[in-house]
């Protein structure tokens, strides 16, 4: 079996498990980047999404200034192609993490790249919460925090899990590009060690690993989205 594998995928085996170019290393790098930028981008996205919903014209705290500010920030960052964003915000990255290259440096553009995408989806998910539930809470004398946490975020939780799943999957796609600033990861393995060296077997295995990762995220996401949903029979 293993001799068959090493004859069909010689370059895959040659890269090994550990070491700078090893498979284990690049899997860990991809997971690291996905996890932390999902956390940071997730928090930013939820904050922006909530502010957008609360401050819109018929929201519970209408405020044109904050709505327009958040709306424009989200629109502008969404409009910048990620590969350009990587280069464009390099000076900011330098200020925040002290370096422009590597896995940690990639977290800044990844976070900024993913949060506007997520914020829009959070906004849509929260808007799907029936206005009547907000009114009912207000009629009970609920505070704004009750309404944010117990009504908006909790009532939309299944939808939030669903959009988070979509966001994490697209985030995994973004981490593949982070290889461009030396962040490593499976995307980098596929390009640098696979495509650029005409080692198609490496590209194939890297692709399969990314697909497996995405499938796992999708299955886990679907499971929780279903489990947390009591909206209809």
């Amino acid at each position, binding site marked *: 079996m293993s001799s068959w594998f090493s004859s069909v995928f010689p370059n895959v085996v040659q890269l090994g498990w550990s070491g700078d170019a090893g498979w284990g290393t690049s899997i860990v790098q991809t997971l690291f980047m996905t996890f932390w930028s999902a956390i940071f981008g997730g928090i930013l996205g939820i904050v922006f999404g909530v502010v957008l919903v609360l401050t819109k014209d018929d929201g519970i705290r209408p405020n044109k200034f904050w709505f327009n500010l958040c709306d424009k920030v989200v629109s502008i960052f969404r409009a910048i192609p990620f590969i350009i964003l990587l280069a464009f915000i390099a000076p900011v990255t330098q200020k925040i993490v002290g370096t422009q290259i590597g896995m940690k440096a990639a977290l800044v553009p990844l976070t900024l790249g993913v949060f506007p995408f997520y914020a829009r989806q959070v906004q849509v998910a929260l808007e799907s919460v029936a206005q009547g539930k907000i*009114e009912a809470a207000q009629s*009970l004398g609920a505070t704004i925090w009750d309404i944010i946490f117990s009504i908006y975020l909790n009532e939309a939780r299944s939808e939030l899990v669903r959009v988070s799943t979509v966001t994490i999957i697209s985030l995994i796609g973004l981490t593949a590009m982070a290889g461009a600033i030396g962040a490593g990861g499976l995307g980098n393995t596929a390009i640098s060690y696979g495509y650029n060296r005409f080692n198609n077997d490496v590209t194939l295995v890297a692709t399969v690993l990314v697909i497996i990762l995405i499938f796992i995220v999708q299955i886990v996401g679907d499971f929780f989205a279903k489990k947390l*949903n009591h909206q209809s029979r």
Partner: protein
Amino acid sequence: MSIIELKHVNVDFPDKKGKIVHAVQDVNLNVEKGDIYGVVGFSGAGKSTLVRTINLLQKPTAGDIQVNGTDFVKDGKQIIANKQLQLARRKIGMIFQSFNLLNEVTVLENVSFALKHSGLKDKEIEEKSLHLLDLVDLKDKANFYPVQLSGGQQQRVAIARALANEPDILISDEATSALDPQNTQQILALLKKLKKELNLTIVLITHEMDAVKKICDKVAVMEQGKIVEKGKLRDVVLHPQMALTKSFVGGSIEVINTLEMLHLDHLNDDEAIYQLVYSVANVTKSIVIDLYREIGVEVSMLYGNVELLDDEPIGTLLVLVKGDSEKQQETVAFLKEQQVSLTRFDEKGNLYE
């Protein structure tokens, strides 16, 4: 003493094209403590908008609003601080057409949600919530999710939630409109019972006169943002002044159903359909026989009913009167003399023009 006082309340808002819609126009309404006050009108009449001003879910553009002795709004300006309003709202329960329960928490947690700021301990909140659920007969469903309950049951949970903070006032916004007749009866009976037990004042909006007749003691009729008629239910039903009120009083579902069922096609020139509404105690003679004897018109009965309005038996008759126009006029005069309120309908149950 008025517990709710609305003076010259106006609500305007721009529609989608930016045109100003006058949803509520110069409405005056006094609700006394202990009333069950019905507000009826067709959809779009502004009923919901009006009652939403009571707890300021809807801010009025002009007018004064006073609830429970506290001024909420003066001259169209909110004068109660938001924090105070939050506290005041806990004393004004509200139930809705679409129930508006939280779907992602259990029935028990829905009720507890209302008690979050009550200062009670978690254990006490749970006990009180269970007691409230017991009040609406749903203690056994405490750990169900709302979606597992029927519409009537969901509305009962909403009632328990609305009553959690022991409010003085309960506003019912078309609370029975999404329910079938049986559940509607149950909810109305429950409201009547709770009103007595908890000393509530209820404001009930509906487009069904039957619901009002069932439990209200006062009624206001709304059309195009204005209250066109208001007063004691008995007076409004027996002596409706406005055409709209007449059609509401008469337009009870049974009467329209009866006329639809009969397929009367076209009435002849010498035929007219009247609805007679009268206090049974006032009419000792048989009107139908007297009409034949004294005026000589033939009277066919299409529908008859007696219902209790505030414990007074009120009769409703739907009759087809046959006779020439002179005799028709005599009939009308005769009935008026007998203190019978009458409304003429066409063959489809619409007001006769």
